[in-house]
């Protein structure tokens, strides 16, 4: 017997009933949040001051532009390039005697305008041996790259593949490098990783790739951005909680310690940015630019991650950019315009990212083929590889 879907059905029905009751309440809170946003727009400086002094238990958006701003896209350049990258991986299999993993990078280069062109790249890399599979400190410590760290490492390699292709785009054309997901290494936040791990993955890894984009801007217009479809973040909505908080300075621990409801700011509890900007942004407009106050963002230096939301009609997407893109009006406009165009061509999601995903994806069948290939080649070379008895019992489903 596998999943008993009839049992699940009853539970889904119960859940739907509960959600129905909550929906009216959520609608009221969202309407309140929208009004608070409008009033906040008239008291910019007060709010900015409040954000800077606040001690909250939730993540806040830093204000870079007026919170009430909503801006239509600039026009697209006649000729431009966009490069999208996505990756997937085969993780270390602890049921296999050989410890190895694989990244598969999908990179899509698209050129628009007078000489349209496209290039698809699918590039797998096998990681084996102590040196490639561990992060090492100068003092001799090492941490194995697997599980969550492997996902973070993959993000670094995605950015490297993206930068490689962006750097070889035709001279003179504006170019946008786009990745799926966040520019912020959330996986490193809140985890107790040793500093040499963070240094390897962030300072020497991701940020070195960001540097390549930054340097490229000295000779051409090159922007870097990431795209988050259906975002769940509430950084801006959390700022609105400060707006209605009666305490000044805001200090959650001091004034509302232990309370999970009944606080003044709970009038807009549960509201997320996507819903909020869905109410205030016109179609194709962008929100003001904010910066993330995540603790890891302080390590990003000139690449401090900023973000804005785009009204896409059916959904609101979050776009993250390094601060040097956010501060350059031309690059910001280019990013906004190209992402909208990519979404038009991709039926709501950037076409360069959906095609990059197609190039990168590793299916269940691919995984089985990969491990079979590893076994076969090792056996041919008289190297015994073993799989755990547990895994063998799963593959051969006996009765």
């Amino acid at each position, binding site marked *: 017997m596998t999943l008993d879907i009839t049992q699940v059905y009853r539970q889904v029905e119960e859940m739907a009933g509960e959600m129905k009751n909550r929906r009216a309440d959520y609608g009221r809170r969202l309407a309140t949040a929208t009004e608070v946003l409008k009033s906040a727009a008239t008291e910019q400086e007060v709010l900015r001051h409040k954000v800077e002094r606040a001690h909250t238990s939730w993540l806040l958006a830093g204000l870079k532009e007026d919170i009430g701003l909503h801006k239509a896209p600039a026009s697209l350049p006649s000729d431009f390039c966009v490069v999208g990258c996505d990756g997937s991986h085969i993780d270390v299999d602890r049921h296999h005697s050989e410890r190895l993993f694989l990244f598969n990078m999908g990179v899509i280069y698209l050129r628009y305008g007078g000489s349209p062109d496209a290039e*698809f790249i699918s590039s797998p890399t096998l990681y084996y041996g102590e040196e490639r599979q561990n992060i090492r400190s100068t003092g001799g410590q090492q941490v194995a790259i697997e599980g969550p760290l492997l996902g973070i490492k993959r993000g670094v390699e995605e950015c490297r593949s993206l930068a490689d292709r962006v750097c070889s785009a035709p001279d003179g054309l504006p170019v946008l490098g786009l990745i799926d997901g966040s520019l912020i290494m959330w996986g490193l936040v809140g985890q107790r990783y040793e500093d040499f791990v963070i240094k390897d993955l962030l300072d020497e890894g991701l940020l070195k790739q960001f540097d390549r984009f930054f340097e490229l801007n000295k000779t051409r217009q090159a922007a870097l951005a990431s795209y988050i479809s259906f975002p769940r973040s509430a950084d801006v909505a959390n700022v609105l909680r400060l707006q209605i908080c009666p305490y000044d300075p805001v200090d959650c621990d001091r004034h509302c310690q232990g309370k999970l409801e009944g606080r003044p700011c709970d009038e807009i509890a549960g509201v997320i940015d996507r819903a909020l900007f869905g109410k205030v942004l016109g179609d194709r407009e962008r929100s003001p630019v904010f910066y993330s106050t995540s603790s890891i963002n302080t390590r990003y230096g000139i690449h401090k991650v900023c973000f804005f939301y785009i009204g896409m009609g059916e959904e609101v997407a979050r776009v993250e950019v390094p601060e040097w893109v956010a501060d350059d009006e031309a690059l910001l406009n280019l990013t906004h315009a190209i992402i909208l165009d990519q979404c038009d061509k991709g039926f709501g999601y950037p076409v360069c990212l959906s095609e990059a995903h197609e190039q990168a994806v590793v299916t269940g069948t691919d995984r089985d083929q990969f491990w079979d290939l590893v076994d076969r080649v090792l056996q041919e070379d008289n190297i015994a590889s073993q799989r755990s008895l547990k895994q063998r019992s799963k593959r051969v489903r006996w009765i």
Partner: protein
Amino acid sequence: MDLKQKIAEVIETSNSEFMAQCYELEGVPALGSLVRTRGRDCDIYGIVYYSATHSLEPGRRIIARGQNAATDRDVFKANPQLARLLVSDFKALVIGHRSGGDVKQYLPPSPALVYAFVYTSTDEEVRQFTQSLNFLSLMLDSRLPVATDEVVAAFLRSAGHTHPSSQGFLIRAGKELAWLLSNDIRRLDSILKRLSQ
């Protein structure tokens, strides 16, 4: 070999036919045209009887994109990735081979090679190949998934233009068809009508 004539590569092969994938989306040879590829010890000739343009991946459907485009060319210009996602291929019926300099209008001893390049034939090659019309029996007897008579007529019409007298070639072909189809007048009539149009 003239690279301009190189249009495709064999991706499926058997003694009687081969399928080839085109390098260009719009590079499909015309129905009934003579193409050449390589077998183990010979050149193999085939006549194109089927071609298609489709998604490279079976699970991905092509969807309409041109509602706001002025021309169908604009759809490709605005979506340059399409040329990488779509593919054209064609099937050719094997009707002869060239071994040791001689054209032989019967099946070669072994199929075309997988990944062998496929070339369009020059007018001179077509003219030489159609000096003899023995290949017609091979064509008429084949059971193609498309109307065989359409393919026969298309090939003869285009081959006629490579001869000094197109009319003379078609009369010769008509006589050969009359001999081969003497017990099937309706079919003969159908092909001859297609030749004269």
